[in-house]
């Protein structure tokens, strides 16, 4: 087993393979081929890389036109610009017109850390989740990223994928175990029935580390990797709620409208399960490395363990 990989590198290598076999697959960038790790794609398949310049709205709209004519564009742009500057293009030209465009939000969440709130995308899940006919994904490791890209290359459905910048430690051992289908999450840790940690993307690793610490402290804990933020795995959430009745969600996103909100919405009508949402507070994130910022907001494994312990002792 390797030590991990960056999602962007995995997407690039997978896409080179897929696009070599299908010339309709295109990578569309907004002067972002470097930050999207697409330089190898540009070298290998220069005719299948469409450069749109620093114009995220037009990148999305042009991609919708390309898709309408049989192309399968993957649009790469920083998640913040792709989902917020271009949100109307995503809503109208992609989701509403039902064009086969895959939106790859790179450097998502707090990835750009000290570059400041202009570059953070801590609202993208809230926005994309509310758009009909748009799937939303957050891969947690290289295997899940690979499986997801393979699925997306065959699917005709509009989708948004949010990835970060850092090396993702491995969570899974094979692509097949990591991602099965839209609306399917994974129960990846199952050691008792006191609490379920629900995470997606980069917080899956943190949830697993926290779970290990909780197990060591005698707490019964499960971990769910949702990966498919929309559609949501309602069955899996119901199953873990049946057993634990205490859910703690963990996300690199505003506490409003993201993963925690999705889980709370899914379980609210049961009336028997508490959902505690851990994420970024309603303020521009403070400066620091991503790890420093996660620690500050209580999103590191030790803080999560301590929050869960407090919740269970109430």
């Amino acid at each position, binding site marked *: 087993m390797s030590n991990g990989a960056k999602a962007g590198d995995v997407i690039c290598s997978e896409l080179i393979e897929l696009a070599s076999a299908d010339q309709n697959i295109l990578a569309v960038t907004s002067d972002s081929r470097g930050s999207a790790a697409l330089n190898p794609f540009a070298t290998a398949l220069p005719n299948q890389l469409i450069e749109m310049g620093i114009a995220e709205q*037009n990148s999305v709209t042009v991609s919708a036109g390309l898709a*309408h004519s049989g192309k399968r564009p993957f649009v790469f742009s920083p998640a913040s610009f792709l989902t917020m500057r271009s949100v109307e*293009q995503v809503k*109208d030209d992609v989701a509403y017109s039902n064009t086969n465009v895959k939106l790859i939000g790179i450097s998502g969440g707090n990835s750009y850390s000290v570059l400041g709130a202009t570059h953070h995308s801590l609202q993208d899940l809230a926005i994309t989740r509310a758009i009909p006919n748009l799937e939303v994904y957050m891969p947690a490791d290289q295997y899940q990223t690979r499986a997801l890209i393979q699925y997306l290359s065959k699917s005709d459905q509009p989708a948004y994928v949010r990835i970060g910048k850092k090396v993702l430690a491995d969570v899974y051992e094979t692509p097949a175990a990591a991602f099965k289908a839209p609306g399917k999450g994974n129960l990846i840790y199952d050691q008792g029935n006191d609490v379920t940690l629900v995470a997606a993307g980069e917080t899956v690793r943190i949830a697993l580390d926290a779970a290990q610490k909780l197990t060591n402290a005698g707490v019964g804990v499960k971990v769910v990797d949702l990966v498919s933020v929309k559609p949501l795995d309602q069955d899996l959430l119901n199953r873990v709620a049946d057993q634990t009745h205490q859910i703690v969600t963990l996300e690199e996103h505003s506490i409003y409208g993201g993963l925690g909100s999705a889980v709370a919405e899914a379980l609210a009508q049961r009336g028997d399960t508490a959902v505690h949402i851990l994420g970024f507070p309603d303020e521009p994130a403070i400066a620091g490395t991503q790890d420093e910022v996660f620690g500050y907001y209580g999103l590191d494994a030790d803080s999560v363990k301590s929050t869960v312990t407090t919740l269970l002792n109430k």
Partner: protein
Amino acid sequence: MATTKELKLKAAELRKATWQMIYRAKTGHTGSDLSCTDILVALYYQALNQTPETFKDPNRDRYVQSKGHAVEILYNVLADRGYFPKSDLLTYSQFKSPYIGHPTNHINGIELNTGSLGHGLGLSVGIALAGKLDHRDYHVYTLMGDGEQAEGSVWEAAMSAGNYQLDNLTAIIDHNRLQISGPTVDVMNSEPLADKYRAFGFDVIEVDGNNIAELVSALTTKNTPKRPKLILADTIKGKGISFAENQASWHHRVPTETEYQQGLDELDEVIGGLKNE
């Protein structure tokens, strides 16, 4: 090949159908529809290589109506061309009807959903780019409003059309100089449009946008190699109804019963005159 007289008659009949549809539904963008009627007639009855039978053919010409609010004239043109039964339009803007107030691709003949302004040129750039990548020789047409030129996304799209040298793309501006709040030069001056598009790499042809012969000629002239084309079509908003012409207030006004009858009389007179020519 239809004669100019036949096309003029067609335009007059479509203006009448649109006027009737808006009065019946009590909603619609009257002035905008009448402004671009001649442009749509020149396109759909002469320039556009597309029929209901070839609408899904990958080699068909494409039309994207960026000024989606002028949907009533588009519906009437498509129905007359046989994309769907004319009787469908009796449901226009009614509960559960697919024939809503902006174009949707649930309707046969409509490529992509529009309505929010500033999207059509970018969509057309994507379609034209795909044509180049696939070495197909179809042509893409898009119709924008002049008020729409205030949208920044129009200029992102124009820049990319010039950058990619899309000589399979023709943009048309329905240049009636009025928008919902008044004269376009007063609301937000986007002139000189011809110079601006030339600077973005387009060939610009200025025509009388209510003159079908001029429109047909401009639309069917092949682009200069490696250059997208802009047809700046000088039009009259509300064209064909004397009291609606050049009135911003008729942007989306519905006629009263008296106005409706008067408008109908004027259109019938034009139709009668053309038939007797």
